């Protein structure tokens, strides 16, 4: 490189650096209230708008909203809390709650809720339970939903199968799935599968079983309950005996490369939830609709999921943070959130007023009705996620055909009890 070119580059860099240094301004630090949120880009945008409204109403509050990655929020949050530097307000998914609440770093909200007479009766009880850890309320949900079904109306019509109704059962699900598992090109392999069953928990509960039970105030495995065996057998049969669900590598893992998806028109009944609505709204290849999860012998019992706002105990401004939180979960805010169409508002009144939305071709009211049944949570315990993962890993042996359901459940039962005994011996919170 000629020396004059080299000199020119150095001079340009030096000039740029000088310009940058001369353009830098310094402002004194100021107290700001920080709020972390996460979600889809549309949700993040909505949070920004709602926070901007708060700033407009309360110009004296310096509120800063940061969008953070949802999957790493707990790691970032716990590091900050340990070091005494965390956001005043933070969005948490209900399954992230125990990990954060168990550190004692979240502000209890019971007294504030009572003092300000928040209409807790209007909330779906399960929504508040999701943010209750060991009897103390630490958060208020902003949205939530439970498991429902989507079905391909074109396939039902083409093969003369009646649509699911509110009183349909797990046996009906199996019958319809069998009738809609179709080998269209007669090559011996299905081109359309009857259903994708989603999470196993709703089947266990709807059959009357549960993963754990309490004995003398302590959890023990309930996987020896015959109703659990019945539910797991039903679930495994969908894959192995009846072959009405596309093969899957494990209970916890879907086949990411599978082309057997509801949106591809290759699944007749997709058991999922309203969080899929933003995706399915672009689905114009076939007619589809939504239905309730089928009932089992113990009724319709499905899993809840929600996202809510929490406050850091170390906040310098707990009252202001509480005021911001109330604004973020207000009926006005949750109505706007509901209109994005991915989840229900946490308040019954808002859910009933918001749904069904105008101009949706599907029966959106199903998602509201689904909340009237037994909507449940996993135990809100720090150790639950780890234990559940281990349980399901054992059940993989049945789902992949390596062991019978009875053998896999016996293993899972033993693993669960050993885990719980060790956990109580070590006094993990």
């Amino acid at each position, binding site marked *: 490189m000629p020396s004059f070119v080299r000199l020119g580059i150095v001079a340009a860099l030096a000039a740029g650096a000088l310009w940058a240094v001369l353009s830098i301004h*310094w402002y004194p630090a100021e107290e700001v209230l*920080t709020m972390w949120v996460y979600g889809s*880009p549309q949700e993040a945008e909505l949070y920004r708008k709602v926070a901007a409204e708060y700033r407009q109403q309360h110009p004296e509050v310096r509120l800063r909203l940061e969008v953070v990655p949802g999957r*790493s929020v707990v*790691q970032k949050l716990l*590091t900050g809390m340990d070091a005494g530097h965390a956001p005043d307000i933070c969005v948490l998914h209900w399954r992230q709650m125990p990990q954060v609440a168990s550190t004692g770093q979240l502000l209890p909200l019971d007294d504030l809720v009572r003092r300000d007479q928040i209409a807790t009766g209007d909330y779906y009880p399960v929504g508040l339970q999701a943010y209750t850890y060991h009897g103390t309320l630490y958060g208020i949900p902003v949205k939530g939903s439970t498991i429902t079904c989507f079905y391909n109306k074109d396939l039902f019509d083409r093969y003369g199968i009646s649509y699911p109704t509110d009183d349909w059962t797990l046996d009906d699900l199996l019958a319809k799935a069998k009738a809609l598992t179709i080998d269209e090109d007669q090559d011996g392999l299905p081109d359309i599968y009857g259903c994708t069953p989603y999470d196993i928990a709703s089947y266990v509960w709807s059959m009357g079983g549960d993963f754990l039970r309490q004995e003398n105030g302590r959890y023990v495995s309930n996987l020896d309950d015959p109703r659990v065996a019945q539910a797991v057998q039903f679930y495994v049969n969908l894959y192995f005996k009846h072959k009405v669900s596309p093969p899957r590598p494990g209970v916890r893992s879907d086949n990411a490369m599978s082309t057997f998806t509801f*949106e591809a028109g290759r699944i007749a009944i997709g058991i999922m939830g309203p969080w899929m609505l933003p995706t399915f709204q*672009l689905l114009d290849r076939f007619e589809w609709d939504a239905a309730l999860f089928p009932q089992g012998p113990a009724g319709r019992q499905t899993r809840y999921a929600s996202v809510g706002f929490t406050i850091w105990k170390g906040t310098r401004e707990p009252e202001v943070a509480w005021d911001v939180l109330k604004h973020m979960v207000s009926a006005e805010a949750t109505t706007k959130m509901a209109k994005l169409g991915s989840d229900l508002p946490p308040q019954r009144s808002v859910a009933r007023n918001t749904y069904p939305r105008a101009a949706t071709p599907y029966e959106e009211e199903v998602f509201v009705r689904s909340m009237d049944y037994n909507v449940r949570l996993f135990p809100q315990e720090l150790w639950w996620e780890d234990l559940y993962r281990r349980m399901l890993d054992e059940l993989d042996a049945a789902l992949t055909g390596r062991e019978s359901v009875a053998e896999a459940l016996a293993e899972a039962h033993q693993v669960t009890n050993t885990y719980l005994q060790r956990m109580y011996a070590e006094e993990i919170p």
Partner: protein
Amino acid sequence: MTRWRQYQSTVLIYAILLLVLSGMVVPLVWTLLTSFKYNVDVTLGWIPPRWTTDNYTGVFRAFSFLRYYANSLFIATAVTVVQVATSALAAYAFARLQFRGRDVLFLGYLSTMMIPADVLMIPQFVLMKKIPEWLNAVLATDFFSGFLYLKSHYIGHPVGLDSFFALIAPGCFSAYGTFMLRQFLLGISREIEEAALIDGCSAWGVFWHVVVPLAKPALGALAIFTFLGRWRAFLWPLIMTDSDSMMVLPVGLAKLSDLYVNDYGLICAGSVLMLVPMIAVFVFFQRWFISGIQLGAVKG
């Protein structure tokens, strides 16, 4: 017969290479094609049934893409320049200069490679939080906890959390880089340096006029490794930054994923955009990149 065998082995080698290549290229092609699909079409085969560029515009709407890009580029470049410089100087000292405790110091420095980064996360976080407080107290000022703006753009605190200092300073020193360059420098003939010394060169002169030109392949390789490592860094920038304006591309990319529901088209578009500079770096510096790999293989 020999020719036939040669032909067979060539075909076999090419078949294996093609297989390995497809393992690398197929995900890239899938990512590229998916970036032009609506989320609802992602599982409908490889070719998008409806082509859309919405995902690319969506990435720009989802976060300040250009700002994140600029941050990543600035941080990766600054860390690379400083780390290569400090590693080269340290490597030269450990390889050539004679001073008491040199080998113990080198071993001590190397042993820092054994400490998992996760263990250091909270202490480093606390350190970054305390630095402005200490500096303010010692210098009786509030400068270090203030905010800096370049024109109207927020550029973080002068030091501490949410500052470029936090994103750049810890990456400026590398035991790995020092080790790698020291091993390379040990392979350079001492006679060349001695000749320079006899001609009147100082130790610095030897380093600058003799060692650095001879070590260019190793310096280039270290620069590439460092740049790529910083360009992809996720956890440290995630933990260290608070404000949107200070975040980097991998953090922005992670923001495109929701907790349980993903818009794959959007994520793929973000990934493609993020890949471009890495491909450029590789294409321009692949000669050094390959020699760097060989360096690690034979000198380690």
